[in-house]
């Protein structure tokens, strides 16, 4: 598939990933090959088929949602225990708003 390098860079941007110039050089041809393989679906006429987005066909899915009742969840302390940085019971991140 003829995807341009610029397009691949745009996908990396959307993916929140960085590739160096050298890495891009290596990545793009392989990526194009994979796109060629998955483009195989072009040969299949599936217009009449409803898309299936779930893991089971509709008739096998459990329809009912649970009651909207409060149940125990993680405490604030537990939720923060793996945070790279926390401050006063909150996740701490680099400054977002310019002063």
């Amino acid at each position, binding site marked *: 598939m003829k995807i341009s390098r610029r397009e*691949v860079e745009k996908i990396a941007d959307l993916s929140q990933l960085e590739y160096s110039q050298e890495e891009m050089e290596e990545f793009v041809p392989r990526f194009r090959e*994979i796109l060629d*393989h998955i*483009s195989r679906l072009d040969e*299949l006429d599936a217009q009449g088929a409803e898309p299936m987005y779930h893991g089971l066909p509709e008739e096998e899915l459990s329809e009912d949602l649970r009651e909207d009742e409060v149940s125990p969840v993680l405490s604030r302390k537990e939720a923060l225990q793996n945070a790279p940085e926390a401050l006063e019971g909150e996740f701490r*991140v680099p400054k977002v708003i310019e002063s």
Partner: protein
Amino acid sequence: MSQERDSGKPASGDASDGILSWTAVQLRDRLRSGQTGAEEVCEAYLEQIRRHNQDLGCFLTVDEEGAREQARQAAKRLSRDPHEAGALAGVPVAVKDNIVTKGLRTTAASKILDNFIPPYDASVVTRLRRAGAVILGKTNLDEFAMGSSTENSAYFPTRNPHDRERVPGGSSGGSAAAVAARLAPAALGSDTGGSIRQPAAFCGVSGLKPTYGRVSRYGLIAFGSSLDQIGPITRDVRDAALLMDVLAGHDPQDATSSRRPAPDFSGLLERDRKPLRIGVPRQWMGDGLQGGPDPEVKRAVQQALEHLESQGCRIEDVSLPHSEYAIAAYYIVAPAEASSNLMRYDGVRYGLRADNPRDLQDMYRRTRTQGFGDEVKRRIMLGTFVLSAGYIEAFYSKAARTRRVLLEDYRKAFAQVDLIAGPVAPTPAFKLGEKTADPWQMYLSDIYTVTANLTGIPALSVPLPPGPSGLPLALQLQAPHFQEPLLLQSARLLG
């Protein structure tokens, strides 16, 4: 450490040889009757792990202290009332490291979760604990379960106990190799496109991918949410049934878990079996899919089918006419879901955070770029692409339609037969490094397994006698939704 080439089994005469040779069902029975003790069993396995794990790379984390404590508790429960002690009281189990364990490091074999200590247990882990199982530790996998050889682990590869130069399969390679080398009597794996069945086949053990929704996914680190299922990797199908009795059932924490009552898997296994009609898709055994299976695989499958026929089963030719499109559909749907699921790794709430970020955006990007391995990045890129404006219709929606087409193929086949049989993977275990340079070659390991995930049906990998190469071989059986008991029953006809 001196080692026999074929396995991690201890030399005969070893005091623990007996314990390590027992299946989970045999262990349970001996623990209940008091012939052996939970702590003795636990020590035998910890010793076996100490001796062989460095060489095989099955475990990422071994929880010696936790396992001993659980064994002590199980021993207490067993001494009070052996039959009320739980279905797995004192039976050690290994857990794939993409299933979260409270207080026990869980990495998904990724550097981005290198220091992650889960604050809760996955529902399957809660169920194991309630049943009295002893969790030995966390097994190796391809990073975030993305791979078919366990070579994508960010830590170290796992080696096949039958031939150390070969891969154990993946992504549940650590679990399958641990069971094969007797580093655990049973293990949990997860299967998004074949990740339980293919490593089970490569290592000569049993692996069951249950129906989507049969086992809770709560606490399974998400890869492809509409495809992922947790299931057992065991020495035989009786053990698979025993594990399923513990694992299966509705879970309010997982909205996709089924409300259908779980059957008595072990009980149904002992029932008389009516003769089954087994369909063999002509597309799988011919040369239609990438040239067809390797001759050794094909011969083993044919011999297994002949054996089933001699046991009264009727073998029929069936057609799954769109099989050739499954791998393309899978490598669109799975990366699409993964790209969304993996956006959560951004350095804010858990896991790695890049040093000295300039700003928030810089932190996200450098954290993800440093934390993810090449294959994970490739899948995120692929998933982001197939979901992007201008391509979503041609790729993602088309793949979703293809799932429906595959489902209709199965519906027609299952109107004719009870089960479908074929290979698990096109070849036996391949060599380390053999497929790492070309991602698509690696993806083709999954051509016979992905259809079960795309359609949600259950499927089982059953070990077969080795062929001329001496490597393990396997048969795959597939059944209609929620017909796991049929899979397990028919597998018993082979052993």
